[in-house]
């Protein structure tokens, strides 16, 4: 009977662990499948992209967030709504470029690396690279081409994890002729 008691509260934490563990198993498998870390990074980015282009629909439906007027607003929505919703964290936004087209997301604790240590022979592995792909894919679906990369990573001994996002251009819709 005592087993029944404590479960309800644990359940929320468990489902985020399910994601973290599944992601870990995926990275481990990719490290076995590919010979060098660069290929694993590329594969993670690609998979992230495919997730991002689908996730954006779920996000828009769930969050009822409207159109963003500038990149600053986009940054806010990503950090305060999207990260909160899917990973349960709120990264801080810093290091804006003077032109306002580049910023950093600072993750104090990255749930993807909860149980992770990088072995010495994988020093160029970007463990959480999936996130870059997700952000790139999701923003592409709302007509924004962005560059996303990790510049700091707690797994590599940095104090925080930092994702750098750079606005590249607006993607214009090319509607087929005769359609509005």
């Amino acid at each position, binding site marked *: *009977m*005592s*087993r029944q008691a*404590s*479960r309800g509260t*644990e*359940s*929320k934490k*468990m*489902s*985020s*662990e*399910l*994601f973290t*563990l*599944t*992601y*870990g*198993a*995926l990275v*481990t*498998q990719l490290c076995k*499948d*590919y010979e060098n870390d660069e290929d694993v990074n590329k*594969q993670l980015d*690609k*998979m992230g992209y*495919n*997730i991002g282009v*689908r*996730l954006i629909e*779920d996000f828009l439906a*769930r969050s009822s967030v409207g159109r963003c007027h500038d990149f600053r607003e986009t940054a806010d929505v990503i950090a305060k709504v999207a990260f*909160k*919703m*899917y*990973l*349960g964290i709120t990264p801080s936004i810093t290091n804006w470029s003077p032109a306002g087209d580049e910023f950093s997301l600072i993750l104090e604790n990255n749930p993807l690396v909860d*149980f992770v240590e990088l072995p010495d022979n994988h020093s160029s592995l970007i463990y959480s690279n999936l996130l870059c792909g997700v952000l790139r894919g999701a923003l592409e679906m709302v007509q924004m081409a962005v560059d996303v990369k990790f510049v700091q990573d707690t797994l590599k001994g940095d104090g925080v994890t930092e994702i750098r996002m750079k606005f590249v251009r607006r993607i214009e819709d090319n509607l087929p002729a005769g359609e509005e």
Partner: protein
Amino acid sequence: MTRPEMADEALFLLLHNEMVSGLYRAAEQGEGENGRCITKLENMGFRVGQGLIERFTKDTARFKDELDIMKFICKDFWTTVFKKQIDNLRTNHQGIYVLQDNKFRLLTQMSAGKQYLEYAPKYLAFTCGLIRGGLSNLGIKSIVTAEVSAMPACKFQVMIQKI
């Protein structure tokens, strides 16, 4: 607060789908053998199952017997991972258990017709591993297979290996 709780589930479902299609995509491009995909997915599930059950049972009372463990898998474990319980558990009392889920979460996004039936196995391999990994950390060695006859219902058969 119920909505955000559903949200990380969406992320898991998308990740799982992408794991399946990513592996198969790589296999088609000759970066691995096709037949190995199911095994790889099963192995990934196994690792996750081991990790989950370890965290999940750390404060719980000792299980009474094998059936008690299976009930735990069907109720608590399944609810955590798939947000519902197994609908039916049957056993021959000789080490074979059949877990039936009438609306299996990883199949509900697919069309329910016969059209995609042949693609179902690759979406079940991870979960077979998940069950096997969970049981393995509770000291039960098993073989887990799955079958689908009408989507999105599916049956997992657990064969306990006596040591």
